[in-house]
């Protein structure tokens, strides 16, 4: 029982109420042996960063289907850095236009996944990113 578990915060920032994707991901990561902290709907970036700190997670997964990802993702990253959690890998899922991918990667988002993404790929990418 001393093996280090991967801890992931799955959060839904912003105002859309579509949490099915987040729940599917939470369940898939659970089945991959990770400990998933699920925060529920309508979280502010401040709430997400605070939870990430208290839970000492390795990964934050954001689910955004409102189109506000270009405002929410950088804000979450900024707060994580400010809290001394620059090592936390941020993953993003939802409806993300291709033209945003470059700037999201540039700001340090580790992975971006749209509809139809394979959970196996997400699990592999998380494990790789955490192993660093």
């Amino acid at each position, binding site marked *: *029982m*001393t*093996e*280090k*578990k991967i*801890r992931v915060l799955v959060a839904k920032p912003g105002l859309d109420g579509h949490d099915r994707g987040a729940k599917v991901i*939470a*369940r898939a*990561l*659970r*089945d*991959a*042996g*990770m*400990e*998933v*902290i*699920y*925060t*529920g709907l309508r*979280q*502010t970036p*401040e*709430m997400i960063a*605070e*939870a990430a*700190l*208290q*839970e*000492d997670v390795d990964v934050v997964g954001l689910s955004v289907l409102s189109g506000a990802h270009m405002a929410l993702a950088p804000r979450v990253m900024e707060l994580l850095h400010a*809290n*001394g*959690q620059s090592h936390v890998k941020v993953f993003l899922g939802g409806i993300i236009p291709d033209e945003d991918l470059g700037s999201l990667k540039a700001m340090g988002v580790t992975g971006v996944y749209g509809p139809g993404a394979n959970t196996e790929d997400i699990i592999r990418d998380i494990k790789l990113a955490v192993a660093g």
Partner: protein
Amino acid sequence: MTTPQAVLNGERLALARMLTKVENNSEEGRLALMELFPHTGRAHLIGVTGAPGTGKSSLVNQLALHYRKQQNKRVAIVAVDPSSPFTGGAVLGDRVRMRDLSGDPNVFIRSMASRGSLGGLAQSTANVVQVFDAAGFDVVIVETVGAGQSEVDIARLAHTTLVVEAPGLGDDIQAIKAGILEIADILVVNKADRPGVENTEKALKTMLELAHPAERVFKHHGTYMGVAAPKSNLNKAVWIPSIQRTISTEGTGIAELVDAIAKHTAYLRSSGGWALRERTRLEVELEALLREGLMNKFRESTTAEAFEQALEAVIQRKVSPWEAANDLLKGSTA
């Protein structure tokens, strides 16, 4: 930077990281616990247990809000949810009900997976609680996994144990079974706006009256009759759990519940129960450490082959498991 001193200084990131080390039972975590231990023993440990869906997390949320707003106490919450027995993974969802506490630097919520432990807590929950205690939190609320009937570890950890019930979960036979109801210092009937709340409360009252008979007067065939309370062979005052109705989504009944918790604390302080619970908790911890240490010592002193051989002999019915265990213990130098 994750030093015990940083935890004592109240650095939140250091605290969060220390909790991980302690939860993982790492060498660094153990060394830190030794340093932190002299600073423990000040926090009031409140346990919250009950069946899944009775509203434990929402109740914890309301309790923490009350302690923050009315009493300005620093509150830590340890919320335990089950790990999958198959993959070891977990979804920890108690924070969903605790969003009201967000943004308050004097609240710290930590989710824990049970990691194979069956008593309603994780193996390292007691140690995590110690870290919060040392870090200066006045109240540490521990929420167990949704408990069935026998997940009673919390009673050995907490000073005050709340058992949360909700209307419609069982009849008066459930209420006289051994187990979880026995450990309650306070019984909470949550979701008290639901139908059936009177029946639930009555069943619990009946259970308490069976356990703590008191003088009562009742009508039998038209005549009033009195029955004196049986003489207790204990001279000291006995704590009789109170039953509190709450509606945690609205905050109804929370102030009364906090009063009941304060009364229980006062009772523990005046009756010597507080010291007794401290003693029990530390005794359990010491025994667990001894067991672990002896097991490690045994493993070091015996070879895997010797164990395999003994196991094989048992499988072939050549020796019984008792004999095999005795032989292994004799063969080792432990």
